[in-house]
């Protein structure tokens, strides 16, 4: 464990400045815009944490050995789910403001009236709290257990985690679907897409991978995690590469089916996003989330070049932010809104997330030293 470093004042300053802007947003720019921003950052934090937890569980599920040396990083990133819980509970206040299904006029709407129970605030909150409980259990088993193993060196944790991993996959599927359907697609409750949960999963997994690669390279820059070699980097890069294709596959499949069928209640979703300035954002999303990272990572050398990987990881995280913006902000109506409120939210939440991750990166050893497979993972070669 390295000694505690002082928090850089620039981060604290950014958070403080952002907090002032966030408060100002509520009064100056109106509650709708405030809550849209709040939901955006809640979803970003939550998907990033969930995606990281998924990486951890995936390793246990398939008994992967190569990723044991880097596993502590997604474990630390997954703790981001803890601050996401209060943010999410506050975000419940956004439900009566932003989500048409929970507003009183929904009772007279021919479609929404039938779903009133599901969309109403009490059941919405109950589902959200249920998801948080599931996530905390998963965190305690997978991350808490792994941190304890550093000291106890007890291999029983590996058996426990391996048994829990299949159950986690079910939990994960449920929680990510709740995030997708309730928090994102709930903004347009007359629009349906069965594949939407998978789309959000792809984005969440990609953001988890990108954050893992970025943190790994940052720690290596500090001279830590020296046992992690190019071969491990290559695997992370290959995962990133593969899932850019998966994301676009799912995203395009959803778009193409709706475009082909041309049902008014479905195409309206894309009609809004292909009109005016949103059109440019849609194309930018395709370029930043797929075309650019795909060709940046296509060769073998690119996947294990730390410099290239760092740039792509930053790109992927920004593209994930853009993706969520593209999904959430059209609910405000009109052209894309971007101004000081969005910047203050970004300052506040980005600063907060970075502060949390800085702290989290000091949790436990840099590698899961108690894991009996660590040696095998360190010796991993392509």
């Amino acid at each position, binding site marked *: 464990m390295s000694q505690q470093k002082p928090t850089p004042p620039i981060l604290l300053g950014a958070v403080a400045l952002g907090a002032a802007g966030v408060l100002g947003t509520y009064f100056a720019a109106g509650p709708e815009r405030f809550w849209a921003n709040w939901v955006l950052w809640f979803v970003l934090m939550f998907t990033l944490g969930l995606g990281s937890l998924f990486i951890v569980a995936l390793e246990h599920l398939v008994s992967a050995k190569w990723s044991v040396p880097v596993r502590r990083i997604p474990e630390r990133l997954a703790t981001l789910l803890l601050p996401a819980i209060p943010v999410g509970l506050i975000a419940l206040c956004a439900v009566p403001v932003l989500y048409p299904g929970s507003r009183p006029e929904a009772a007279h709407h021919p479609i929404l009236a039938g779903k009133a129970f599901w969309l109403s605030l009490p059941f919405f909150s109950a589902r959200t709290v249920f998801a948080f409980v599931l996530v905390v259990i998963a965190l305690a088993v997978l991350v808490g257990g792994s941190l304890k193993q550093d000291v106890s060196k007890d291999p029983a944790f590996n058996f426990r985690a391996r048994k829990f991993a299949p159950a986690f996959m079910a939990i994960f599927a449920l929680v990510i679907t709740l995030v997708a359907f309730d928090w994102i697609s709930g903004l347009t409750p007359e629009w349906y897409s069965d594949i939407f949960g998978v789309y959000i999963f792809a984005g969440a997994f990609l953001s988890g991978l990108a954050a893992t690669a970025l943190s790994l390279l940052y720690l290596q820059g500090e001279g830590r995690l020296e046992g992690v070699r190019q071969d491990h980097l290559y695997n992370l890069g290959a995962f990133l590469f593969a899932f850019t294709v998966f994301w676009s596959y799912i995203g395009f499949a959803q778009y*193409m089916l709706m475009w082909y069928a041309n049902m008014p209640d479905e195409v309206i979703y894309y009609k809004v996003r292909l009109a005016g300035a949103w059109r440019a954002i849609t194309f930018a999303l395709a370029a930043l989330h797929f075309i650019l990272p795909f060709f940046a990572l296509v060769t073998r050398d690119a996947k294990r070049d730390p410099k290239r990987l760092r740039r792509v990881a930053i790109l992927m995280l920004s593209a994930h932010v853009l993706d969520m913006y593209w999904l959430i902000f059209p609910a405000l109506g009109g052209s894309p809104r971007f101004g000081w409120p969005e910047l203050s939210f970004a300052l506040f939440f980005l600063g907060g997330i970075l502060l949390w991750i800085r702290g989290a990166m000091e949790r436990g050893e840099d590698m899961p030293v108690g894991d009996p497979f660590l040696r095998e993972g360190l010796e991993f070669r392509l």
Partner: protein
Amino acid sequence: MSKKSYAVLGLFDTPDALMHAIPKLRAAKLGTVEAYTPYPIHGIDEALGLRRSPLGGMVLVMGVLGALTAFGFQYWISAIDYPIITGGKSAASWEAFVPIMFEVTVLFATFTAGLGMLLLLNRLPFFGHPVLSSKAMKSITRDRYALALEAESETFDSAAAAQALEAAGAAEVEVLPAPDRSPFLTSDYILRTLGSIFVACLVAGLGIYSLIKWFPLLAPMKYMQDQPRLNAQKASTFFKDGHGMQPPVPGTVARGYLPTATGTQEAAATLVNPLPRTKEVFAQGRKVYSNRCEVCHGALANGAGSLTAAYGAKPANLQAQQFRDYPDGKIYWAVVNGKNAMPAHAAYLTEPQRWAVVHYVRALQRAQNATDEDLKVVAP
């Protein structure tokens, strides 16, 4: 010198011994160093100094080519060669092309990877690789590790190579003869292959033909014949009203079936002939006129048709001042709806044909009442 050797094989008992021997043999520069092991050994690629396989680049290029091919093909088919409007989409809708582009990209890429590896890089087919027929082959595939010094040129010295292998720690050394690289694609071989394919196709085709001919009950696939279908003028259980034919959806018009002029002839007077006065249009108008009009109105449009005398009918003399003053729309209205004894022609003439015949009637009227100026204009 038929006993020219191709390679010298040295057998090692452990992978470590093999790995240690590699740098020594590479330094000796007697020939290409190649390793044969029962399973992949980490780090052996770097130790052997294998060059980067060009397969990845080939796959990328062919994958991109596959995407472009699929796009070009679909674009040509659906936007240029045979454009059909489907589902109200533009003929050149790239969205619809993407799944096929994806598939063809994968197809090109996988075929390049598989065939490129086997045929181009591994230089298959090659049935007589000397290592395969070596005595050591059995143990190489089981529990021992072999290094081969393979001949790079005519000056390969097998004795020196054997010595070098032994010095590097090989437990056993085996000298392998040169492989039989004689070309197997002889004209005889090609002819026999093509002949076999031809015979196989012939037999299969005749067999299936006779099977279907003599046992017609065993039609292999007749789902298309058996499917339920709607027949015009027949009852159907598909629709609620029990009819096979259905009226068009209210408020819609089928392509090419714009509503014809209805209402009064006076109301149609404002219609404008949409067709240009070109040679083709006049030719079409002439054809329509001779088919459907001439028999009553006469070839000169003067009302003296061949049927007039037989039936005592009095068709309009279109050369009369009254009809020469008609606007195009009123003639069109008469063609579509009929007038007095004249039947409606809406069912027989398409919209362009109706307007073409209006142009032709105008030409006939002008021809019969030509002025001196008209002649001047026509003069070449």
